[in-house]
């Protein structure tokens, strides 16, 4: 198990604490709600390295104004598109 300490913007952290409170309402009288740290672990477990790299790429494109990705169904269906110019 790896333990990490990451500086989070307040508004980002707040979302997790608020989510924990929402779940406390849902689970009231049934089970203790997952705390914010549990929810952070849940969300961090959602992505592969591939997903994370793609997210960062999109965010950078948004910041720099570079072209954003388009739908790539034709690429998905056609592996040879990979080698296309």
């Amino acid at each position, binding site marked *: 198990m790896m*333990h*990490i300490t990451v*500086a989070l913007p307040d508004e980002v952290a707040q979302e997790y604490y608020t989510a924990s409170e929402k779940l406390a309402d849902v689970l009231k009288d049934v089970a203790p709600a997952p705390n914010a740290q549990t929810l952070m672990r849940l969300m961090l477990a959602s992505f592969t390295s*591939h997903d994370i790299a793609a997210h960062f790429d999109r965010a950078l494109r948004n910041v720099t104004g*570079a072209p954003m990705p388009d739908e790539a169904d034709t690429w998905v*269906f056609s*592996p040879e598109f990979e080698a296309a110019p």
Partner: protein
Amino acid sequence: MALKTKNPPPIPEQSPVLSEERILRINPEIDRRLDGFMQANTKLTDYYTQLVKQNPDRAIRAFMLTKMFRHEAELRVVARQAPQAKEWLEQQSPEVKQRVAERLDKISPFYREKAAVRVISQEKAKLDFSPRVGQSMAA
């Protein structure tokens, strides 16, 4: 931060129109998974089959609606992640910022998955990603 919408796709220099043969080319692996998904979701498959045959115009809108929801969801995620990417970018030197912008411009986002992994891994190799002050990691 104002959310940028998608830029119009770049105009291909060589083949502006994809041939029918190329559009209809099949990735066998994806096709096999799609077969399984369709067999496991017969009601949905029947619904779209009927829709395409009986009301193709509405079928187009149904298809695009799915795309729109996905696009909007992606934009929401990008909007929330952009400050983190901006923070990283602002920590880089002007030369690196310029290089990143040029690289992203040059790589066609059409191949987004391949391109994203390539750009990030290349930049990662060049830059120091060690934890900064205020960040620590212990095994």
